[in-house]
């Protein structure tokens, strides 16, 4: 087979073009000894981090290790992700590392660290496409939320009951199939009926803005990282309709 020498007329490698334009800014500054803890978070090293955290805990309070080591590390990761420098696995591995570190600190404190708030996530009844949900979970956990993961193919009933029980600040749903996403309006109706005005962010390939606009509580979540932004807004007390106004439309 003949092969072309020059492909530039056939396709353009915009990824290389952008790479040239970006200065890759991995710089990160932080002082003191907790710097190392933070760096292990940033590099997503969930094995070595235990050793380092243990060292730090010898002369720092666990609250400090969390506040000045683990969290700033994860903040930097969020920045790198937000700026398009980090890729998803880096974020997930960092989150894993941070969570390992936090568990260690919690053991020391004798009680769980306080989370920003509870979020329930699930994949729609009949649907087993859960990668999107896994990403959402990882990002939410990384951002300091307690995630109650109901898993995949979750009956409408179970979702509603869990909301009654946990009163989350946000409910997340993932559906990749048009024949499963129909569970979402049913959930929303039940929640409204129970007067649980929980913002319900729905994402996954099948879902689009028009669909979620069709029922109360529904907000369209285009990308996994929206879950975090929307959770922040919910935490600030915005109602579902204010959130929808802001993120959709």
């Amino acid at each position, binding site marked *: 087979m*003949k092969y072309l020498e*020059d492909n*530039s*007329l*056939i*396709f*353009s490698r*915009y990824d290389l*073009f952008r790479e040239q334009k970006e200065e890759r800014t991995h710089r990160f500054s932080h002082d003191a000894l907790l710097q190392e803890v933070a760096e292990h978070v940033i590099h997503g090293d969930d094995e070595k981090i235990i050793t380092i955290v243990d060292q730090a805990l010898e002369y720092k309070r666990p609250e400090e290790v969390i506040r000045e080591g683990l969290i700033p590390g994860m903040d930097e990761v969020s920045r790198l992700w937000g700026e398009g420098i980090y890729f998803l696995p880096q974020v997930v591995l960092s989150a894993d590392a941070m969570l390992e570190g936090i568990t260690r600190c919690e053991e020391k404190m004798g009680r769980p660290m306080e989370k920003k708030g509870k979020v329930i996530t699930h994949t729609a009844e009949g649907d087993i496409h859960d990668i999107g949900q896994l990403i959402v979970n990882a990002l939410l956990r990384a951002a300091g939320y307690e995630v109650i993961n109901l898993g995949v193919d979750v009956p409408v009933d179970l979702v509603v009951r869990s909301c009654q029980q946990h009163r989350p600040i946000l409910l997340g749903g993932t559906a990749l199939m048009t024949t499963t996403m129909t569970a979402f309006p049913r959930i929303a109706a039940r929640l409204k009926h129970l007067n649980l005005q929980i913002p319900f962010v729905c994402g996954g390939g099948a879902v689009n803005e028009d669909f979620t606009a069709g029922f109360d509580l529904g907000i369209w979540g285009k990308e996994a990282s929206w879950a975090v932004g929307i959770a922040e807004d919910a935490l600030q007390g915005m109602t579902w309709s204010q959130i929808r106004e802001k993120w959709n439309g």
Partner: protein
Amino acid sequence: MQLSKTMAYARAEEMMFGTCLYPVTTRRGMCLGGGEVIPEIVVHPRAGSEKSLKTLLREFERGYNDALERCVSIGHPHVCLEIEHVAQMTQKTEWGEDVAAQTVSLMDRYEERYGIVSGCRFTIADLRKPDMVHMRDSDRSQRVLEAIAACARHADMVAIESIGGKEIFDHAIIRNDVTGLLFAQAVLGGRDMQWLWPQIVAIAERHNCLPSGDTSCAHANTAMFMAGGYHGREIPHTLAAISRAISVSNTLVAYECGATGPGKNCAYENPIIKAITGVPVSCEGKSSACAHSDFCGNAIAAVCDLWSNEAVEYHSMFGGTTAAVFTEMLGYDTALMNTAINLGYEKELQACMVNSDRYRDPQSYILCPDIAWEIGKVVVEHHQSLYSRARAAALKCGELIFGDDKLQLTTYEHDALRHYMADLEKLPADEGNFIDLCLERYARIHGFRRESYGL
């Protein structure tokens, strides 16, 4: 105005996709017809988005953003965005202008960010309804020209699908009346364009915008649409083929008045236009199935310089919005063609395209490069009048269809074509006589007024 007397291409074999004799360059520096086939994506706003300027802008922004984003996502080097006005955008000049301005700034943003060079073409809606207004002298004609100016200020290219002669055409096409087609398309449509196009060219040139082209959409495409499918029973396919051949006479007028190309995507007569004029042309076939079916899904690509989807309504699919999806598909189609060019296999690929559809239907047959060229040839040979060249094209078209054994016809199609040929033979040779005959025959047709065409 001089009617074309010569063929730009001396032989059909010299015509090839991606290259034309007279390439053009947009103000952003995108070259059309200069060795590369470029995808041309058209996205149509959803129902309801015409409610307000705001919703319409939003709809177009999404659509064309998705198109550009998909290009940089998978690597399509160039793209042309075509925006077809819905009536409201031509009616309200600011609407048309705002959409144009927004589109251009979107393109600039993408160029800056990713280095992608794109182009845009605006096709104004021809609001002049022949049965309701004077085609040359009415508010509506004014509005159309203003809309063109408003777009030309921003756009790389402007175009129109002019509808002169539509009132007679509509009457004739459902009555098997080939005389009526000749009158509607060549005499009326052509004359209307001779009035319209010098104005468009002047406006476009004033704004450094390309006056791209026109199409016989109101005639030949209506016929094609009605002659769709092997089992459709609206009109005979041979009649649609003849209407297409006739359309060359009027579509050509735009270029005779100074249009530069690229010819409008929906002008299926473009292979013939390219043979005569050498301008770049946009074509559409299989990847415009979203807008209408045709019998020349591959063959129509044989000599295209842009490759279009005609129009797809904006909405979500599993793989993204239709805007993104069709951009991806068109871009891969053109990548295949451009690879062929670069490998030196363009002749082979062209042969595959042509053979795929050559004998599918009379309508695809006459658009194969060799046949297209032959029709073009009689058009330039009969340059006495818009009418004479159209009649010659129609006769040649029938002759070629009958002349190739491999092109099988049903008995019905065969009889129908024999009928048309007999009708065509009987017509006067001279345009003046023909016009007299028609003015009498069609005087009573609802909405027809000769003054609209300066007759």
